[in-house]
């Protein structure tokens, strides 16, 4: 898959890159970061003009994210009908209102595996479109120009850099899962301790 995409990027340039990142933002499992770093290296070698390529990629990925946000937005009614009355749903929404912007921002370039679920949750009522758009645009600009810039900087070493960054992203995802697990375990343990103390001694 990666090889096919790379061949097409060198054949068709920015429009093809735009299509890849657009579809990636909608959840199609393309190796987006890998391609962005490769394109940075191609720009360094003079095969693609970096300002145009970067702007096309940024526009397309933000459009994809907005569409994905829209999907969450239009799916919110059945979800709210099902869960809207529960206390936990409101707590989750409050949590996302507080941390949603940062989740959108970080999932654009640091934990990219979470980008699509975060878009859907944001659209489903977690975040206003204006806030989503601001954090999305900022995060994606870092993804496109930061990661593309690394490809540009490292030139012919881009494959090794891409491999490292992909693994780092996986490592961070693992740390997030682990942190949630540990936090839940700690919350449960605290709740159990509290209920034990409430039981009167006989």
């Amino acid at each position, binding site marked *: 898959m990666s090889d096919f995409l790379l061949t097409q990027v060198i054949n068709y340039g920015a429009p093809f890159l735009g299509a890849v990142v657009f579809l990636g933002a909608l959840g199609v499992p393309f190796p987006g970061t890998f391609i962005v770093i490769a394109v940075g290296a191609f720009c360094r070698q003079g095969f693609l003009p970096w300002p145009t390529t970067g702007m096309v990629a940024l526009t397309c990925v933000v459009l994809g994210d907005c569409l994905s946000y829209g999907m969450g937005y239009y799916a919110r009614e059945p979800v709210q009908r099902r869960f809207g009355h529960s206390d936990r749903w409101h707590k989750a929404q409050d949590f996302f209102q507080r941390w949603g912007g940062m989740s959108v921002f970080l999932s654009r370039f640091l934990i990219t595996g979470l980008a699509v679920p975060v878009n859907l949750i944001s659209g489903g009522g977690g975040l206003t479109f204006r806030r989503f758009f601001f954090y999305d645009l900022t995060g994606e600009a870092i993804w496109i120009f930061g990661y593309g810039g690394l490809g540009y900087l490292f030139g012919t070493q881009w494959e090794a850099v891409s491999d490292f960054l992909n693994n780092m992203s*996986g490592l961070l995802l693992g740390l997030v899962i682990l942190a949630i697990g540990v936090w839940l375990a700690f919350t449960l343990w605290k709740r159990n301790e509290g209920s034990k103390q409430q039981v009167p001694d006989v």
Partner: protein
Amino acid sequence: MTPKRVRFLVLSLIGIGLIVVALFGVRAYYAWREVRGQPPPQDVLMEAIPDAADAELIRDWMTIPFIARMYNIPSSEFYEALDIPRRGNEIKSLTQLNSQYFPETPGIVETKVKTVVLQHITPEEPPTEPAP
């Protein structure tokens, strides 16, 4: 959710998290070692650094025009070496060319392309002076 299910969910999260961290941690460590072990970044444009080109940078997803431009070698030389027409083959990768024209010998296109590149980047030996 029953307490048993909650406990199962929490333990699953911790277990999956540990596996993912271990797997990607090891991979990231080796990838980092590889990045550090690489030579400093270089442009492969022959005009910029004539002796920096390395045929090992050629990959099977590359196309002939891409390689030709990368090494500043006329693409006609590659087509001649491969004995294939230029028309219709400009957007095909080395893998595609190999499976189309040389299906019985995998990797031959990449080898031939590297040979052409090496012919261009190998410095010519200075002519030996005739013995007096």
